[in-house]
């Protein structure tokens, strides 16, 4: 696939050790594609001194070590020097290949003790539990970004009928593997965490493993489809993915 040429961007500091590249102001797939291309380019050919490249919905951030930024003394300090290098990089970008996003099928056991909020959520939207499951398993979701927790992927593409504002009182403990809806997004809690999303099911797959390479199962741009499984199947899969 041909690389979209980066025409419009804005650079700004995030404190004195990070730089943000803004490539749009929306959550569209087109903007996400730009974010992914720049991220991949900056990971393939790293700029000296950059410690982390963190893509998000329409921005990416470069965390850097000011002492290791080349030519930082010449004019204006580390940020100015890095901004010049980033500008040159962005202007030189054309026609690079993007990694083909992977597609994952994620088994989910819906409802019951694994999805405490499923019935309430169905009731709120005037749907049956079966209809919610149908609508949740239908789309091919897109990983919008990773954040919030290790391996947590924000999945875009939720059926608008299922969009639900976050809970006003977040839970202190959401079990690992919980599949949940928050606003117009859905996602899978990789660890036991506090959280304000509505729990509709649970997946037996491990979404994060510190000793795997890469440690997160999903990457930005990947596609995800949820597949309903029975409680028995969930237990069997949970055993094999321990």
């Amino acid at each position, binding site marked *: 696939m041909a690389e979209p040429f980066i025409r419009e961007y804005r650079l700004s500091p995030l404190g*004195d050790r990070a730089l943000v590249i803004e490539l749009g102001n929306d959550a569209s797939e087109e903007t996400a594609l730009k974010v992914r291309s720049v991220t991949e380019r900056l990971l393939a050919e790293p700029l000296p001194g950059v410690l982390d490249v*963190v893509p*998000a919905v*329409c*921005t990416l951030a470069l965390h850097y070590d000011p002492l290791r930024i080349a030519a930082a003394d010449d004019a204006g*300090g580390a940020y100015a020097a890095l901004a010049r290098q980033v500008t040159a990089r962005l202007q030189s970008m054309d026609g690079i290949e993007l990694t083909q996003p992977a597609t994952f099928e994620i088994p989910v056991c819906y409802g019951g003790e694994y999805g405490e909020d499923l019935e309430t959520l169905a009731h709120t939207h005037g749907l049956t539990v079966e209809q919610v499951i149908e609508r949740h398993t239908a789309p091919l979701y897109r990983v919008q970004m990773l*954040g919030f*927790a290790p*391996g947590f992927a924000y999945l875009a593409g939720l059926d608008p009928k299922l969009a639900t504002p976050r809970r006003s009182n977040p839970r202190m403990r959401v079990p690992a593997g919980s599949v949940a809806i928050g606003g117009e997004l859905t996602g899978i809690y990789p660890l036991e965490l506090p959280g304000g999303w509505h729990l509709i099911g649970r997946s037996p797959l491990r979404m994060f493993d510190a000793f795997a390479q890469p440690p*997160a199962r999903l990457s930005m741009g990947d596609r995800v489809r949820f597949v309903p499984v029975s409680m028995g199947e969930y237990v069997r899969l949970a055993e094999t993915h321990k």
Partner: protein
Amino acid sequence: MSLKVLRAGILSTLQDRGRYGYQRYGMPVGGVMDEHSHRLANLLVGNAEDEATLEFTLAGPRLEFTQTALIAICGGDFAATIGGREVPAARPVLARAGSVLDLAVCRLGCRAYLALAGGFDVPVVMGSKSTYLPASLGGFHGRALRRGDELTVQPAPAHLYPALHRALQTAEDFVCPKWSVHANAALLAHDHHRIRFMQGRHFALFSEASRTQFISAEFRIAANSDRMGYRLEGPTLSLTEPGEVLPEAVTFGSIQVPPDGKPIVLMANRQTTGGYPLIGEVASVDLPLLAQLPPGDTLRFEPITLEQSEQLYLQRERELALMREGLRERAKQ
């Protein structure tokens, strides 16, 4: 050589300068809260500055050395004693085998760092020895220390401070030099803390009144502040037009303002991204001071430019470089 935990303290974890290179997978950087004290402690015992130290908080641990140990304590004042005798901070200390270091209740500051020459022998997970409790990874079995734990210490590569070793032969429990390095404890003695910040990416979205209040009002650090973030009590800040921002990366010192209008300064265990407007970022040089302020302390924010902050950062690094050179010489004596 190992370190036996006789009492664990409130929150004692192994930390280094953090876990970089994995934020794009949602993995927080973590690491020490007060990086300056951590680095000084390591330098004093001849370690690399990113070697893990033991970070302890508010009430410290009680630890026994199974062999002679070269140690240093930097950061908050925990009234450290060995064998009942006070151990001065911010200098190398040579402790006898079998002696017991007691880090009591914090008298000044909020947390401190114990470095041992050679460093702690724990696995490097995702490029770091830092303990990240929410995922139970890194550090000592992914958790805070408990009574009965025994931590292995790696052999120190060089025989440092020979004069201290000679002096220990005729001394009880421990010996240390009369000199110390300049630590940040002096800064903590003030009542009113000034934290310098740069305008954040969403500064202009805040109402004029809120922007003025942010730099004029006093904020109090709330009780539910932790390694992840400092919650501040003070005036309620609001946007000119209520709205949301799309989630994006945050950093150590990002000051985010949730819809309730109460700012949160993101600290070492912050998430990689956030979805609240950022009114500013704390200057890197002031993060060690902020990390030492306990809940209940008050602070004011003072605006500076990025260029000023960068200059302060370079100046701090130059001072550290001089200290590194100076200590290398002293360690030969």
